């Protein structure tokens, strides 16, 4: 321990707070994790059928999970593939599934598969893998999304540059691809999008879809930080930082004043130099 150096500390803290605010304002959209969490940048996209020239990676992973069913109502559940971040995730709410009578559990599987049907050129081009989401119960019979219940959510991550992609769905009953209302997750990972679905089947990210409902206003800036985030970062956050800075400095100043009152002049002028000469 060295004695606190209050005057330079106040200057340095003020500079640090200002720099933090500035760094957040200037930082590009795919920003790093906060400061040193264990989650790093996205790993290279794992293709089921790698395009020519793509980076060599392990094959894309599948995922499955089993949910309990009680009284005909499934438990809420979540599963994701093992990539960092996951390339496919599926979320289902409690009671969202229509299950065969007498079922006590359902198993959800998400796996990368070849496209069950070609994606029409008018929709755009396939961006990444097609993922099949299937659910089976421990009793014979189909498992479907319960009409009127909260819809399950599909989350897909595409290769870098996928921001703006739309999730399309193909089902056994309706093999043609259909665009879903797609929401960019935004934030630190711009290549992740999500959509709710009222049917199970095959899901893919499609780039180049025009029209449709590809983005939701104010959802966080989709591809680059967007207009919605700027005022927060540029105005509100620095102000909050300054207020909080005061919350740190004021106690220090008060403590310093008390020390000055109690200890006479001995502490005055001795801050940096006393430490340096130790």
């Amino acid at each position, binding site marked *: 321990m060295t004695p606190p150096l209050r005057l330079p500390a106040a*200057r340095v803290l003020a500079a*640090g*707070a200002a720099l933090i605010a500035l*760094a957040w304002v200037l930082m590009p959209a795919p*920003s790093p994790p906060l400061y040193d969490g264990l989650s790093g940048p996205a*790993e290279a996209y794992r293709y089921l059928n790698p395009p020519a020239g793509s980076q060599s990676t392990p094959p894309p992973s599948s995922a499955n999970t089993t949910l309990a069913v009680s009284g005909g109502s499934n438990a809420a559940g979540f599963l994701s593939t093992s990539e960092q971040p996951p390339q496919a995730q599926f979320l289902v709410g409690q009671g969202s599934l229509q299950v065969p009578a007498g079922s006590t559990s359902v198993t959800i599987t998400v796996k990368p598969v070849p496209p069950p049907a070609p994606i029409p050129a008018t929709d755009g081009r396939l961006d990444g893998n097609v993922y099949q989401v299937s659910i089976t119960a421990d009793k014979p019979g189909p498992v479907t999304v319960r009409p009127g219940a909260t819809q399950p959510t599909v989350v897909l991550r595409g290769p870098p540059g996928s921001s703006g992609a739309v999730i399309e769905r193909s089902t056994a009953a309706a093999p043609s691809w259909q665009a879903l209302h797609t929401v960019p997750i935004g934030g630190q990972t711009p290549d992740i999008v999500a959509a709710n679905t009222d049917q199970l089947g095959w899901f893919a990210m499609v780039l180049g879809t025009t029209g449709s409902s590809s983005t939701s206003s104010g959802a966080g800036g989709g591809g680059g930080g967007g207009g919605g985030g700027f005022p927060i970062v540029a105005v509100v956050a620095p102000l909050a930082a300054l207020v*909080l800075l005061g*919350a740190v400095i004021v*106690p220090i100043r008060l403590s310093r004043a008390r020390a000055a009152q109690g200890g006479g002049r001995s502490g005055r002028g001795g801050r940096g130099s006393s*430490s340096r000469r130790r």
Partner: protein
Amino acid sequence: MTVAAARRAALRPAALLCAGLAAAVALRVEVAGNTGSASAPAGVLFGAVLLGVALAGGWRPARPSWRTVAAGAGGALVLLAVPLALRVAAPPVFRLGSPAGGFPVWAGVVTLVAVAEEGLLRGALMGVLLRRTTPELAVGVAAVAFALLHVPVYGWVALPLDLAVGVWLGGLRLATGGAGAPAMAHTVADLATWWLR
């Protein structure tokens, strides 16, 4: 011995600490491979090496005072101000990537790494530099080292923010006289990523 030679000799411990830091970073990158910062074993190894270097460099953890805790908590709030504001503006609905293992393991590794980094940078390194240079220079050197150590893991894009954060944590070190407050602020800010991502 000339003045320049004396100064060089005096700064040798700082250079050794920086070399130890560089070695720890290289080890982490090597062990982590393409899993980057998601590798818990690499994080544990990194933290352990940093702690060893910090202790060898003379840093000794001290019992935190109420002032240290208050400064650490306030420091964490400043670090989290912008992410919190962004979270309020656009709440994330989904998990964007689960760290290795569950929360207890993740939190343990994150805490170890954060405390070890602070023990070395704001503890040992700044302790050495504060005896031989100005406080501002000591903060600057530690902040640059802090920013650079993250580049191999997070890329250059992380440099500006980490540099700024390093200055802030250095300020906490100056204000409180020890590495406890920056360690607490750093740890809390890192742990908050579990909820803020």
